[in-house]
């Protein structure tokens, strides 16, 4: 496999709730001081019957069974806020909450229909939208630059670009992919994609508690990587959740490729990129820190450095930024629970975030996770701000700043 390894070796999926306390991560829960920072920082903590603090208390009291029969953690959008704020460094979003969610998912009397459809689609078609797997590669016909497909090439490449679902199928996600293709081409990156063979990396299935679906997708993708062993050196993806899956979950199955999200990857090429950014964009931009990139992996400054490298861009910050960023509401299955949240009377997190973005006076809300473009555009329309604020992936802004 790859020559460089930056992957953690911890394999959390070996941990179960039964053997939880045998692992260091499990024993850490014993040190919880019940300060409640986790519940306080949770964007839906106010509507949860069992916020993280109570779950830990009930686990220690042997009362966790009660939690399994509640829908409480359907409100967990896996934003890593609780984990980032925990003074005891308890790996809530990484380890404990997914394990509890697995049990909750099995006991759910009814899976909310929107989520059910997304999960069934992901299992059958490899993408949550239920689009044809044979059309996954169709977007490549709409680019100005050639997009090589690994299986059709006779030579190895440096970078395997793992495109992911929304960036393959969603019309606005495809804008991100077209922009990246232009940037990669401009930088002279030697890349290829998997084409129609690619399927969802599965992270959000895991984070909603559908561990079996995640395992199925993980097995499939690992088989694909093994088939192309020696044909690429490293993986780059614009999918923030795919990045997380490859970095933290796939190593348990022997994955040891270097993996980069496109934001830190392009940041590594910033000096080469700067001379290409010759078109002035007079935008006032605010940046939404994606949960996986920011709180989970600490990539706060790289996206900002890319934005401020664009001539004419003025970067302004929202009240909640970096570690305090508010989730778009799409993680942990939230992408397909909007109807459920709405029916419960909860405010959509994407709307809360768009209000903050508008308050900065920005005319562009910049994002770095493929879930966010549709979530924020929808929220802006619902709130009547669609004439005030446009949502753009940072890759789109970079490509726009490149003279064609």
């Amino acid at each position, binding site marked *: 496999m790859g020559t460089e390894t930056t992957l953690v070796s911890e394999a959390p999926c070996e941990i179960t709730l039964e053997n939880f306390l045998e692992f260091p991560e499990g024993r850490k829960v014993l040190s919880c001081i019940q300060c409640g920072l986790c519940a306080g920082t949770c964007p839906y903590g106010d509507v949860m019957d069992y916020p993280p603090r109570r779950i830990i208390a009930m686990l220690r009291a042997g009362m966790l069974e009660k939690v399994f029969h509640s829908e409480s953690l359907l409100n967990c959008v896996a934003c890593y806020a609780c984990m980032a704020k925990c003074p005891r460094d308890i790996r809530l979003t990484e380890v404990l909450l997914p394990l509890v969610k697995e049990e909750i998912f099995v006991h759910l009397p009814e899976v909310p229909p929107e989520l059910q459809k997304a999960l*069934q689609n992901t299992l059958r078609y490899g993408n949550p939208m239920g689009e044809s797997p044979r059309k996954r590669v169709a977007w490549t016909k709409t680019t100005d630059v050639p997009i090589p497909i690994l299986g059709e090439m006779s030579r190895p490449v440096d970078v395997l670009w793992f495109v992911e679902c929304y960036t393959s199928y969603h019309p606005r996600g495809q804008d991100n992919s077209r922009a990246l293709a232009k940037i990669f081409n401009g930088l002279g990156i030697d890349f290829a994609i998997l084409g129609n063979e690619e399927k969802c990396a599965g992270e959000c299935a895991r984070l909603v508690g559908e561990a079996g679906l995640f395992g199925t997708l993980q097995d499939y993708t690992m088989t694909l990587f093994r088939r192309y062993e020696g044909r690429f050196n490293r993986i780059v993806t614009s999918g923030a959740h795919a990045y997380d899956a490859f970095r933290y979950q796939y190593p348990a199955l022997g994955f040891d490729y270097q993996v980069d999200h496109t934001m830190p990857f392009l940041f590594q090429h910033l000096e080469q990129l700067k001379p290409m950014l010759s078109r002035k964009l007079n935008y006032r931009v605010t940046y939404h820190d994606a949960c996986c990139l920011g709180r989970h992996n600490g990539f706060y400054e790289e996206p900002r450095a890319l934005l401020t490298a664009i001539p004419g861009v003025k970067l302004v910050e929202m009240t909640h930024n970096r570690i305090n960023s508010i989730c778009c509401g799409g993680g942990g299955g939230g992408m397909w629970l909007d109807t459920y949240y709405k029916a419960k009377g909860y405010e959509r997190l994407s709307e809360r975030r768009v209000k903050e973005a508008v308050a900065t006076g920005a005319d562009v809300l910049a994002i770095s996770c493929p879930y966010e473009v549709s979530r924020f555009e929808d929220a802006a329309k619902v709130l009547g701000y669609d004439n005030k604020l446009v949502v753009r992936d940072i890759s789109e802004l970079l490509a726009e700043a490149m003279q064609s």
Partner: protein
Amino acid sequence: MNILVLLRMIPDVVEELEISNDGKTLDREFLRLIPNETDDHALEEALLLKERHGGKVTVVAPDAPELDDVLFACLAKGADRAVKISGVEPVMGGRAAARLMAQVLTTAPGLLPADLILTGVQSTEDLDGLMAPILSHLLQLPYVDNVTQVTADGPGKTVTAVKEFPSAVRAEFDVQLPAVLGIQAAEKPPRYVPVAKVRAVMKSQHLESAAAPAGVEAGQLEILQMAKPEPAEHAEMLAGDPAQVAGKICEILAARGVL
């Protein structure tokens, strides 16, 4: 209550359908099959009846690609037995399928007698939704179609089937058992079954097989030609501000005599 659910695998229209060179059949090279939606609702209704009144649910399906995964999912949802019928063309027309299923049910061991036979009221490859009525005719059993709810009495002698009529009219039928019901929709959407549960069932349970009887009578209808719908004229997009667009809509409606 002993309930049989008939399940058909039909072409998945997420993939574009192609017609074979013979002009009468679907090209199977990229064709994928999926459980018929109303059959899935029939299974859900059967599982709800089992949960409320006890009994056993058996799923019977003509063999087809990807059927094993579907049947294991049925078992994981709560069905007790899953029987696949071998020796059948993977995609069958509606009337021939009904005759075949009637013969399979009467000849395969351990399927009949059943108190209830539930199946979807229609499928996309079914010309006129005759699977359940022909089946009931051949088996000489009472039949109600377009059913959206089934409740059973205590002793299991009768069920009450709610049938939908046009204009939002609903009727309740008391049906003597055994009977055949054509399910239009279950009382609630078909349940989700976690993949891990399906995987566990694959290890702990097995699928049964029964051979289709030889010499099944062909369907009464023959497919003469299969063709893709021809594209009609393109839609006209009305441009302009809302007042202009509204004006144009009024002109179009007036020209067609609607206004």
